[in-house]
């Protein structure tokens, strides 16, 4: 690990460096103790409360979910913790929700305005991602010491505004490498207290994973083409026309017959999706956690906290609202 040089031995005049006395190198596994059944219950109650409070509760639900996963992740006998204040997340949610509603409505009335919104969104996305990573890393803690993220806003713009241009230019070949860059940016700039991080992943791994994923997706696509054909059938309409029943009703009749069959499939899919979503979250997390190990020089006790800073939450809410997977 390159940062060993920074850690071992010397005392630095700057406050942010830490002195560690080299001891035995230990490998500590990351353990995950969460259970799908337990999480499923939490998830349903979260969904219920979020909906009946018209999404106000979703800020608390978010924190609860993160806390659950963190609290069930332990290293060397101690678990992680998520310290975010839900009220801040709520504010972020409200801002983003308002913007989204404005965008949706404007889109129906005036195509130019909605185009403007989309452009605005692309320009602001790297900022939101940056703020989001900073918020959720700063509010993640282990043994009472917070994490931090030291990437810069400019780096975020390079990574999320400029780099994606290369993806269509290389017909997608750049994509796994871009994911690698994202992970690298995240891990290299994540700090624990006053100690910095290093990232040793290689692009090759990413290419292999994505190839397998594409094979899976291909079979799914075949199935969805069938559904697409049917939904295209639905979109007859136009404006409120006098006989709007007519082109559609012939279709409705046919759909009626297929509905029974489709309804059965949807029911299967529905329960499967619900199960999958919940269990996937758990197993995905498990996979991440059990594949992660922590190499420690000396003892964990010597990590020290960094000077504190409060970080606003708009970014966190935004990327969750739009579900950009930028985290671990």
């Amino acid at each position, binding site marked *: 690990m390159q940062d060993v040089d920074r850690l071992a031995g010397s005392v630095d005049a700057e406050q942010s460096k830490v002195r560690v006395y080299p001891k035995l190198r230990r490998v500590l596994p990351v353990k995950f103790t969460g259970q799908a059944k337990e999480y499923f219950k939490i998830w*349903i109650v979260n969904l219920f409360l979020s909906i009946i409070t018209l999404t106000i509760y979703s800020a608390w639900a978010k924190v609860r979910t993160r806390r*659950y996963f963190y609290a069930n992740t332990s290293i060397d006998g101690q*678990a992680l913790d998520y310290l975010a204040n839900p009220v801040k997340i709520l504010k972020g949610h409200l801002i983003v929700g308002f913007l989204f509603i404005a965008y*949706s409505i404007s889109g129906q009335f005036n195509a130019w305005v909605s185009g403007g919104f989309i452009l605005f969104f692309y320009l602001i996305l790297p900022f939101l991602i940056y703020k989001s990573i900073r918020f959720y890393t700063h509010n993640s803690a282990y043994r009472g010491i917070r994490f931090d993220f030291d990437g810069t806003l400019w780096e975020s713009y390079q990574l999320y505004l400029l780099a994606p241009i290369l993806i269509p230019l290389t017909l997608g070949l750049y994509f796994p490498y871009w994911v690698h860059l994202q992970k690298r940016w995240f891990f290299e700039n994540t700090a624990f207290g006053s100690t910095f991080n290093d990232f040793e992943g290689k692009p090759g791994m990413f290419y292999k994973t994505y190839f397998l994923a594409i094979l899976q997706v291909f079979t799914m696509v075949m199935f969805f083409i069938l559904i697409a054909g049917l939904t295209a059938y639905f979109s007859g309409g136009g404006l409120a026309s006098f006989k709007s029943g007519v082109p*559609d009703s012939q279709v409705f009749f046919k759909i009626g017959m297929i509905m029974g069959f489709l309804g059965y499939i949807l029911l299967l899919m529905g329960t499967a999706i619900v199960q999958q979503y919940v269990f996937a979250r758990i197993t995905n997390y498990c996979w991440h956690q059990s594949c992660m190990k922590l190499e420690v020089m000396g003892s964990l006790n010597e990590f020290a906290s960094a000077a504190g800073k409060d970080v606003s939450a708009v970014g966190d809410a935004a990327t969750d609202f739009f579900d950009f997977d930028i985290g671990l």
Partner: protein
Amino acid sequence: MQIKGTYFDGKSAKAHDAVLCADETCVQVKDAKGRPFDDIDDLLPSMSVAPKLGSTRRVIRFEGGRQFETPDFDGVKNLEDRFGLNRAFTFVGFLEARWYAVLLCFAGLVAFVTLAVTWGLPQFAKIVAFKLPPTAMDKVSRDALALFDKRVFKPSDLSEIEKTKIRKVFLQLTRETGKDRAFSLQFRKSKTIGANAFALPSGVIIITDDLVKTSQDIRELKGVLVHEISHITHRHAVRSVIQNTGVVLLISLLAGDVSSITSLAASIPTLLLESGYSRRFEIEADAAVGLYFLNKGWPLKFYEDILIRIVKDPAQPGHSDIFSTHPDLKERIERLKTYSVSAE
């Protein structure tokens, strides 16, 4: 009371064995030797007990990043009770712990969503739509007409005399049933569309040559025009926009994120809901026709006839039994019957 656990001082990552002592007025965290950490006598003012979460260890936080963790659930529960903390989240935890509560929540969720979709959202859309100025969708209407004229419509073949006659009828109808705006009747011809009529939210109503030609009585045309006018006066287009936006938001909320709305799995319920809404608007417009005919004492047969004739229009593929292949039409005719029955 005393609770055993682990203490972190927020400055280093070291875990200390500790005991939390609480009585009526103060809370202290002591180390193995019985001394309060950092010599703080009372941590109560900055104490924040994180709510219970499944079977994860309890966490109590203090200022300066200090925290105390313990697997002693009973102990922390006593602490919460003593100081009256986390009552709301204790209830949430209760819901999460029992399967019957979870099932109730799920049922409640389904009920709420159903209510919102069938009543809440349409009500909201109605209220908002009437608060907006009637000109809200004028630009969209202009753009839509321009698009139709480019793709689908050709200029009408009807004679000026016929057009004038129908325009006079239309003017009278707008005076009787139109309320707060100006209307305009446009004639177009289209082979692909055949006999039909459209209403644009800006007040423009389009009627095709085939529809005029297929009508056998002026009352048939009047029925069609009243239907179209009512789409505009009831602000169906704006309400449709608001409702559809609401559906998108609702589904993305349920699915957990907005990007999923573009997935096919989410678009099916979306389209179903939107079609359902547009059916309701058609029925509402038909009701206006029913009332109008009732007031004039005309049999609704005239309106029904032209509806059926439109469906049977040679431009559309034909079917022998209209109602079995057009359940929508069947429903509309049946609802119209309630107006003619009361007339007799």
